[in-house]
């Protein structure tokens, strides 16, 4: 009761995956495939008939592309259906008309009919393959109807090829077929199809008909029919199972089958991978494609092919993994154990035994040490395997070319040395040693080919110059054949070892460089803040280390990508390149040079993906224009891109945190402003209102009336001052304070402030020191006079009227100091900086002269707007010193001189 059998419980992960698939479908377009065994079965015909039925029901259906092969029935059916104009592409002097993806996206029909899913697009199209166009349409929520023949299915490609002897290179990944929403099998009896073929209904042109004669044989058609029906049935079976699982139906999932296929560089791997896919699909099992990369091992071309095979596996739906290690079989077994793999599939090929130092017999090792794991060995007869294009060409390949000069030089030197030794009377064996030395040197320094030629030349030279009969090539003794063979073997061994050492050194150098770039970039990015700065640092670092043109593009407010840094790669001036970048950004997939999408672009575009989403695009234009980065560099780039994305993300999060902090601070300020302002406004208002209403009443004696009236006046003054300060502060915070500089005399500014102070506070003593030769200063007179007034007013309020008020102006070389001094109680310790904050108030001498706590904040803002500083210090001997420091800028203007003592002059 407590232990329910686990098999009955639906696996939550699978359930989730199905749910996601279902949800994905609801926003995605639906794909319907008309599936047939060969051309001419009537897929297009059936599709167009259904299309007419849909149109009649009012569905917005458009023909995106339809190939009629000159069949009149098809032509007749096409009439009356809305056709999308085709895109005409000029290619090698001919005009190709292609499906127009952009027009289709712009038109956005409910259903779009696009014939021939396996079609390869003309060069320069956005995607190399039509099925990629279809995927994009589906992603955008457009339903697509299309046609497909069985021989174009990736996993069946080789099987069909072996049956019919015709291998097509246009293939569609099985995932597209399996994840389609509806399959309509268009079936026809082989006899009937042959009949149609002979009548010329399949291929209109006679030459095409002749070319296909070998294909359209009854035996072929029967086999193809079986394969296609079985494939369609497989798929339906899978659908039924999905549905059943969805309802929680019991099914024995006793063992979870997991297949691992070993991916190597040999062309036969393709066959192994396809077989693995079929077996995995048959078992409804997960499958993993694993490649082992041997550090510094072998030909870089091998690595490229291995990568191509991994990609093939990926398109067939495998999980792809690359392992590192010297011991291929060991690595595979270890990984298989860690992933609970039940079956390992490996190809048996000649290639596996070719390199003798790798330790032969990976298959043997797997069989011996595999333990519980089943090992399935697939025959690797690679006779009609076409090597796949390596996805990344160029780059690191560093073959050691044949070096004739070194060869001749070494052999000449060897011959001369040998002649010398012979002159000393040394034996043949020692003479041969000299040649061996030369061959060894050539092998180590100039590679296998040169060393091989060296050993040949050495033997010939030895024979010609040193063996009787001399100066002939006749050899009496087969012993010298042995000499040659030994030299040859040594050349082979040494050159191979050297080459391996060299690639190892190269690999470790690359690895070191990679680590170095990663380290430097991460350090650089960690110390950088601000999106622009991060982008600039990344561009700089990447360009310096990869030697490529690198640009970071980030979306603007309208989600349009823009290069971030001014000195971006000139290639981005091209609108087309920006469009590729935009595509990458919107779809989150790499595009441009070297990828499946828009491969004709001049640069490679990688999305910058962070955990929070896509932040931008990294554009890399390979150095020298056309050479694409090697696969190692490509992976490095992907890593670097994620590093950059993370840095940008981190910065954005930091920015967000900062701004929320600022917001919280602003909120706190607003709250304190509100409470302070409401209090400060209400108090004088209460006094004024109360006093005024009392004054309206009769029966007050004259002294009482006077008292109330004085109250009203004083409180009104206070209110006026508060409102003034609030307005100034608001203007400063809104950024509306403009400094209007004019040339002013400080004496006058100080005098103006004191005059105004006396107007409100009455006559009081202020000592002023202004140097008689003080120059004019460029500042905003109104604002600075207000600052001086506020400081003086403050001093009166907090230090008292007779606290030795003093204003002292000091002119220095590059700055100007104005001190407002008093001998009052001074500012309490620890408050010297705080008093410049908003709504910070001290304890005034008289309780009725409280301010709003804004005066000093305003003063500081004004002084800072002038590029100066305002600080408060304690004076020795007691009291406060408010010190304004202003920079002296510009040369004071001169005034035309005139003679002194000219009261007599004309007025």
């Amino acid at each position, binding site marked *: 009761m407590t232990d329910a059998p686990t098999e009955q419980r639906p696996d939550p992960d699978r359930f989730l995956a199905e749910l996601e698939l279902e949800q994905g479908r609801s926003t995605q377009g639906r794909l319907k495939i008309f599936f047939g065994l060969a051309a001419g079965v009537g897929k297009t015909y059936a599709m167009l008939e259904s299309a007419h039925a849909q149109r009649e029901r009012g569905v917005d259906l458009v023909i995106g592309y339809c190939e009629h092969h000159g069949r009149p029935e098809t032509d007749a059916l096409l009439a009356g259906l809305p056709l999308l104009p085709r895109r005409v592409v000029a290619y090698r002097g001919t005009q190709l008309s292609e499906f127009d993806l952009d027009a289709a996206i712009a038109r956005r029909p409910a259903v779009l009919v696009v014939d021939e899913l396996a079609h390869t697009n003309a060069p320069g199209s956005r995607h190399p393959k039509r099925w990629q166009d279809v995927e994009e349409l589906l992603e955008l929520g457009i339903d697509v109807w299309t046609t497909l023949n069985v021989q174009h299915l990736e996993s069946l490609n080789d099987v069909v090829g072996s049956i019919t002897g015709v291998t097509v290179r246009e293939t569609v990944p099985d995932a597209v077929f399996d994840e389609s929403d509806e399959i309509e099998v268009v079936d026809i009896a082989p006899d009937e199809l042959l009949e149609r073929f002979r009548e010329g209904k399949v291929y209109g042109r006679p030459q095409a008909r002749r070319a296909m004669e070998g294909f359209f044989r009854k035996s072929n058609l029967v086999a193809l029919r079986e394969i296609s029906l079985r494939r369609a049935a497989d798929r339906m079976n899978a659908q039924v199972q999905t549905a059943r699982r969805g309802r929680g139906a019991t099914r024995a999932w006793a063992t979870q089958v997991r297949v691992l296929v070993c991916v190597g560089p040999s062309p036969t791997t393709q066959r192994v991978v396809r077989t693995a896919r079929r077996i995995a699909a048959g078992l409804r099992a997960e499958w993993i494609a694993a490649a082992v990369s041997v550090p510094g091992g072998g030909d870089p071309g091998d690595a490229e092919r291995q990568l191509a095979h991994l990609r093939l596996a990926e398109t067939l739906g495998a999980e792809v993994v690359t392992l590192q290690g010297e011991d291929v079989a060991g690595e595979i077994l270890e990984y298989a154990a860690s992933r609970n793999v039940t079956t390992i599939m490996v190809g048996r090929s000649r290639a596996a035994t070719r390199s003798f130092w790798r330790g032969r017999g990976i298959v043997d090792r797997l069989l011996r040490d595999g333990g519980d794991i089943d090992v399935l060995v697939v025959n690797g007869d690679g006779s009609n395997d076409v090597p796949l294009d390596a996805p990344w060409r160029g780059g690191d390949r560093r073959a050691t070319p044949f070096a004739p000069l070194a060869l001749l030089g070494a052999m000449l030197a060897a011959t001369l040395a040998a002649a010398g030794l012979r002159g000393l009377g040394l034996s043949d064996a020692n003479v041969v040693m000299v040649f061996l030395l030369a061959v060894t040197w050539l092998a180590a320094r100039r590679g296998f080919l040169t060393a091989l030629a060296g050993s040949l030349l050495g033997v010939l030279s030895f024979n010609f110059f040193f063996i009787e009969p001399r100066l002939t090539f006749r050899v009496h003794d087969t012993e010298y054949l042995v000499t040659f063979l030994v030299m040859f073997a040594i050349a082979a061994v040494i050159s191979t070892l050297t080459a391996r050492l060299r690639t190892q050194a190269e690999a470790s150098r690359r690895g070191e460089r990679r680590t170095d770039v990663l380290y430097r970039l991460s350090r650089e990015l960690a110390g950088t803040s601000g999106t622009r700065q991060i982008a600039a640092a990344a561009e700089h670092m990447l360009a310096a280390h990869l030697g490529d043109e690198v640009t970071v593009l980030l979306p603007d407010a309208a989600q349009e990508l823009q290069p971030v840094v001014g000195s971006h790669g000139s290639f981005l001036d091209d609108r087309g390149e920006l469009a590729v970048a935009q595509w990458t950004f919107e779809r989150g997939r790499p595009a441009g040079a070297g990828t499946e999408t828009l491969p004709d672009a001049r640069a490679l575009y990688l999305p910058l993906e962070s955990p929070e989403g896509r932040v931008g695009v990294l554009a890399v234009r390979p150095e020298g224009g056309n050479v694409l980065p090697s696969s190692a560099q490509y992976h490095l780039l992907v890593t670097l891109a994620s590093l950059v994305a993370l840095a940008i993300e981190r910065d954005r999060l930091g920015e967000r945190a900062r701004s929320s902090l600022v917001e919280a601070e602003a909120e706190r300020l607003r709250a304190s402003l509100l409470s302070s302002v409401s209090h400060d406004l209400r108090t004088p208002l209460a006094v004024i209102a109360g006093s005024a209403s009392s004054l309206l009443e009769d029966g007050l004696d004259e002294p009482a009336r006077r008292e109330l009236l004085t109250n009203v006046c004083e409180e*009104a003054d206070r209110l*006026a001052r508060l409102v*003034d300060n609030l*307005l100034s502060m608001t*203007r400063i915070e809104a950024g509306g304070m403009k400094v209007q500089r*004019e*040339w*002013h*005399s400080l*004496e*006058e*500014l*100080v*005098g*103006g402030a*004191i*005059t105004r102070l006396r107007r409100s506070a009455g006559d009081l003593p*202020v000592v*002023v020191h*202004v140097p*008689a030769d003080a120059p*004019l200063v460029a500042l905003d*007179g*109104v604002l600075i*006079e207000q600052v001086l007034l506020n400081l003086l007013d403050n001093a009166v309020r907090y230090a008292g009227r007779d606290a030795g008020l003093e*204003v002292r102006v000091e002119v220095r070389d590059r700055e100007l100091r104005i001190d407002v001094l008093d001998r009052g109680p001074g500012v309490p310790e620890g408050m010297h900086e705080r008093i410049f904050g908003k709504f910070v108030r001290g304890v005034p001498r008289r309780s009725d002269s409280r301010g709003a706590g804004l005066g000093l904040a305003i003063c500081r803002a004004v002084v800072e707007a002038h590029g100066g500083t305002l600080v408060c210090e304690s004076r020795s001997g007691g009291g406060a010193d408010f010190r304004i420091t202003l920079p002296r800028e510009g040369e004071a*203007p001169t*005034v035309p001189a*005139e*003679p*002194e*003592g*000219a*009261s*007599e*002059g*004309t*007025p």
Partner: protein
Amino acid sequence: MSLGRILLVEDDVAIVRYLRTVLGHAGYELELAEDGASALSAAAARPPDLVLLDLGLPDMDGQQVLEGLREWTRIPVVVLSARDQERAKVAALDAGADDYLTKPFSTGELMARLRVALRHSPRPGDERGADPAELRVGGLRVELPARRVDVDGREVRLTPIEFRLLVLLMRHPGRVLTHKILLDEVWGPDAVDEPHYVRVHMANLRRKIEVDPSQPRYLLTEQGVGYRFADG
């Protein structure tokens, strides 16, 4: 006995009520216009002795009203402005207003400004036919024909510009003169964009006639506007 008839151009009811009470009590006769258009027609229909003009009016800018008046009359105009209208204030003075008051203002300040404006002193630039031969304020005495200046009985020597500046300000005691007006009158129209001329000469003048130039008794600064000679 009426001290004069004042046309008040103001749309705020509270200010109107206050001014009506205060000015009526002081002996002025008050006429009210609530907007610029009616102010212009009222002034034309029956010219007042003084216009008290608020710069913020509902229908037009106070500046326009002032320009409209100045097209045909020299009636004294005192403008009322808010604190943040520095530029408007200076513009009004340059356009021919006689003085200004910044809200809030005290009754004493208001009365003093009105008194000065109604004194019928000639505006700067007007012909000064009935010039007195001697100007005297406190201990400062200027004998115009002799161009002699005494401070507390001690003669001081002024440069021609200082002399002209002093005389110009003394002829309009209590009234603010903008930088532009001073520059135009003393230096000529080419110098109106050089306000530092005034500041330099004013500083020199203060050193000669004030006891403490940084705390002047005679030559008062209206920061951002101009200068005013202390009124008595």
